């Protein structure tokens, strides 16, 4: 393990003044607050901060259709009434309003993620952070769920130039449908999304049965959850699944979408995670010591978003942050107690143990297939590969029991593939 990671952090001061419209829950001002909080904890002294370039339309068209990008470029609030057909074609309007500087905003956040990916590609840093990015709903030809340009897809496409396999992890409360859809047919990107599913919760996709198609079959993982999941069950599930995924898939680089709407008390979310629980996922992913691209995402209670991403910046910098927020311009947003950690909400966890274990079993079951259908260059082992041990103490006994039984089960099932059993040993040894 390297002693110290080089961190590149992307921020553009112009995002703070972007405004989606009255009562729209997406408030880019949260990025400004996050940056401010990061600086007031003096975390900037431990990292390099970059202003991203504004992505050019041609870069955005690497994923998006050229006509859509062109339309985003062209449309303004004053002219939108002339393009009713196009607006509905591209799903602009209600959830994704046309506002002043829309395209510039897209250019900034997409540019940030693309730059971050390029810095990782050129090994100029080990971890790149772009809290402005992570807009995972945007589709190739249309906007969706407050997302216009899918910076994650663009970033992953950039990473794919240097890495044979990219792992995408999404802990936003909403399903990362745009990214999953973009890479649904390929085994070069594995998408893993933890999200609320059911009750017609947006965007409605993300059932555990969606696993990818064609070459991409088994390379899309969905972990559908119900309301009110708490730190314990979420992080346990996260660690189990992610460690298995990394072990099996052996990605060259990881992209982590840290949507903060999975926190307790979010305006749109319905999970019950504390900031520590959320940050624990980041900490766990960091431990793999692979190149890591971290982006923001959802998050609609802006004080908590700023808190969460500040804590996570600290986690990535191996810096434990004291709970009392230092004085800064925005301190009033954090009143009355000026504390960094927010308490969990009082919510019923609708995810029963049996439900979680069913989901886990299904996911792990699907994961078994990928070793028997190795994708491109499975033998390439990235440098500094390291799987952290799961902290067994933190798991409760039944859970541990479950895991053991599960492992046994997997072992037993494997016996059907007699010839391939050797494969497993190779994997373990590597």
């Amino acid at each position: 393990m390297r002693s110290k990671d080089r961190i590149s952090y992307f921020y553009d001061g112009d995002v703070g003044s972007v405004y989606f419209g009255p009562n729209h829950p997406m408030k880019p001002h949260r990025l400004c607050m996050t940056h401010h909080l990061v600086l007031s904890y003096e975390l900037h002294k431990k990292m390099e901060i970059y202003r991203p370039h504004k992505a050019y339309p041609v870069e955005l068209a690497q994923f998006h259709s050229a006509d859509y990008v062109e339309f985003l470029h062209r449309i303004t609030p004053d002219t939108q009434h002339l393009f009713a057909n196009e607006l509905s074609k591209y799903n602009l309007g209600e959830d994704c309003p046309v506002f002043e500087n829309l395209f510039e905003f897209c250019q900034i956040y997409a540019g940030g993620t693309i730059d971050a990916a390029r810095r990782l590609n050129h090994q100029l840093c080990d971890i790149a952070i772009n809290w402005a990015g992570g807009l995972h709903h945007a589709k190739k030809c249309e906007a969706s769920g407050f997302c216009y340009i899918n910076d994650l897809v663009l970033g992953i496409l950039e990473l794919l130039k240097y890495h044979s396999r990219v792992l995408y992890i999404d802990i936003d409360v909403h399903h990362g449908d745009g990214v999953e859809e973009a890479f649904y047919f390929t085994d070069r990107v594995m998408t893993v999304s933890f999200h609320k599913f059911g009750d017609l919760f947006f965007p409605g996709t993300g059932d555990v049965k969606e696993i990818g198609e064609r070459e991409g079959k088994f390379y899309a993982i969905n972990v559908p959850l119900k309301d009110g999941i708490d730190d314990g069950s979420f992080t346990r599930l996260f660690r189990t699944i992610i460690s298995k995924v990394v072990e099996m898939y052996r990605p060259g680089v990881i992209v982590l979408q840290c949507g903060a709407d999975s926190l307790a008390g979010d305006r749109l979310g319905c999970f019950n995670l504390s900031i520590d629980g959320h940050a624990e996922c980041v900490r766990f992913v960091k431990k793999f010591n692979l190149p890591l691209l971290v982006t923001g995402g959802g998050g609609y209670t802006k004080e908590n978003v700023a808190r969460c991403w500040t804590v996570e910046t600290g986690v990535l910098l191996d810096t434990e942050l004291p709970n009392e927020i230092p004085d800064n311009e925005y301190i009033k947003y954090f009143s009355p107690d000026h504390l960094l950690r927010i308490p969990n909400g009082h919510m019923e966890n609708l995810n029963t143990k049996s439900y979680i274990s069913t989901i886990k079993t299904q996911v792990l079951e699907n994961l078994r297939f990928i070793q028997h259908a190795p994708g491109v260059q499975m033998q390439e082992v990235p440098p500094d590969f390291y799987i952290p041990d799961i902290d067994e103490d933190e798991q409760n006994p039944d859970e541990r029991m479950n895991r053991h039984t599960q492992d046994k089960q997997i072992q037993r099932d494997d016996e059907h593939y007699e010839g391939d059993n050797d494969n497993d040993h190779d994997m373990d040894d590597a």
Partner: protein
Amino acid sequence: MGRWHVSSNASILDCNKDVDPNPSNGCCIASDCLVEGTYANVDYDDCKARIRCYFEKILWVFLKEIGRRGFVRPLPALIGEGGALDLFELFLVVRDKGGSQVVSEKKLWSSVVVELGLDLGLSASVKLIYSKYLSDLEKWLMVRCGDTKLENGSSDYCYKKSSPFLSELGAKINGMLYGVPRQNSIYDECFGFKSNKQNGNVNVAAAAVEKEIKFSEIKKKEHDLHGDVTPIQQDCTETHPIHVIEDGQSLDAVNVEAEIESLGKYRESLLRMLKWVRKTAKHPEDPLNGTILGASRWKGYSSDDALWLQVISAKDALLIRKGVDKIAEKRLLIQKKVKMHPSIYEDNIDNHRLSTERISCSKRFKASTESVFATCSNSCPTVRSNCISSSLTTEVGKGLKNQAVLNGDIPSEMEDDHPNEDSAEETVPVGALCQADLPEWTGNNSDSDSKWLGTRLWPLQHRNSNSVRDRRAIGRGRPDSCGCQFPGSVECFRFHIAEARMRLKLELGSTFFAWRFHQMGEEISLQWTAEEEKRFKELAMSSFNNHNRCFWDYSLRWFPMKSRKNLISYYFNVFLLRLRSYQNRVTPNSIDSDDEDFEFGCVSGGFGDKAMEVLGSKSLECSINRQVTDVE
């Protein structure tokens, strides 16, 4: 699949309405004309548009069928640099020239391209698109029609205008819709019900749908004539039962073989449902209406014993119909139109709903169920009648489904058409319009632009790396004590905030401005006069509480000297912060600066030099300490 069944019905209606600007003559009427040979009376373009509508319908079903066999054909078909190709025009042109085979043999593809007004270079792709999208359909239509004239009469068609063919296509499509014995599963899908009965039955079914259309159109007219909104609503609900009976009658005809009891039950429950809706609309608080449960608890209720569940089903069908606008047809995902954020778009939401919605997004559905009809009444009467007629169409569809169930013939795709199904079968959309184009992995590093890696703003170029002393300070929190005269007082707070700002400014140098820190914090208010601030606050309060979406436009007019950016910056940096101070002190239990629907008293005054005097007042300090005991 269940979704498709519903929406196909709905979108047939849709088609009629979209294409036909004149409500009194629906598509089916026009097609009747075609059959009877009175084609000449109907305007050419008008008719073409209708046939186009049928054509697109059929093509879509057809492609879906093909798609199920594993060949994905996304719509619209794209050509060249992403422009959509009009498949209907292409089809017509090719048929005019005698079909694709003839065109290929005679090498006429380039002239086809010219007739379509496209670039000559695209002829290969046009041909490809034709073979992918249309050649099967062409073959199928030929077989379907059994029309020998078509097969041997290709030379005739070369010289005729397209109109005879149009009428033929119309007749063909028409024939397909009304009367041809059904052998093909495509046709079943076209209507969404599956019964292997004879022609007669199908004819009646078609007639029922037709009746439905006509009826809704007449009703629409009625509504258009009405001026007043309230009586219309009344009228609208009053006419339901009649409408239902009308439907019931047509259903009777359809249900030749179905048990009469089931029909009676169906009609009765529909009536009961509508009664319930009417009652609820009149007396929303009446406990007799029953409570509407959350989606998770729907199981165990059948739609017969819980009327609200029926209403929700109807509303769901309505939602689906909404999703089936022409552009979004390819997807048909109900969730597509599910809004990520529930409350922002509705103009008059009462506080009760706002507060429930904040808890969870999904709650919206519960809330909006209660107000389906309320929402309807906000829009114009035409729209409302549309809503209702389409929801009833769904009910008609359901009736047919009931019939199918009774006949012991349960089409599997209808099974999951149930609104309380949590795990609705949603598939990930696939096709060239959805997935990313991945570059082939070559093993060696392909070029990645190294030009744009971002501009480093920190650490500053001209400074040496941070000293050890600096590092120690990283990540420190709030100091436990300070040297202020009154620690914890407002003055103390202000002093430390200002101190932190100064320190940051010194440290960051030019970067301070690059990050727009000079536009952060309450200091912005120094650029505003007291008068302006007051005006902004008043305007904001009145606008937001009235859900006025034009607030920013108004405020731009009110403050001609300020740019939009200034206003927004003021809003976030000063206005909201002050709102928070108010909430922090006065209503510490309901703090929320994200909900722009607020109550805002006044505690804070101006800034700068005067701030100290105003805010240092005793009374204010007292109120802080009393209300919020856990502050320092």
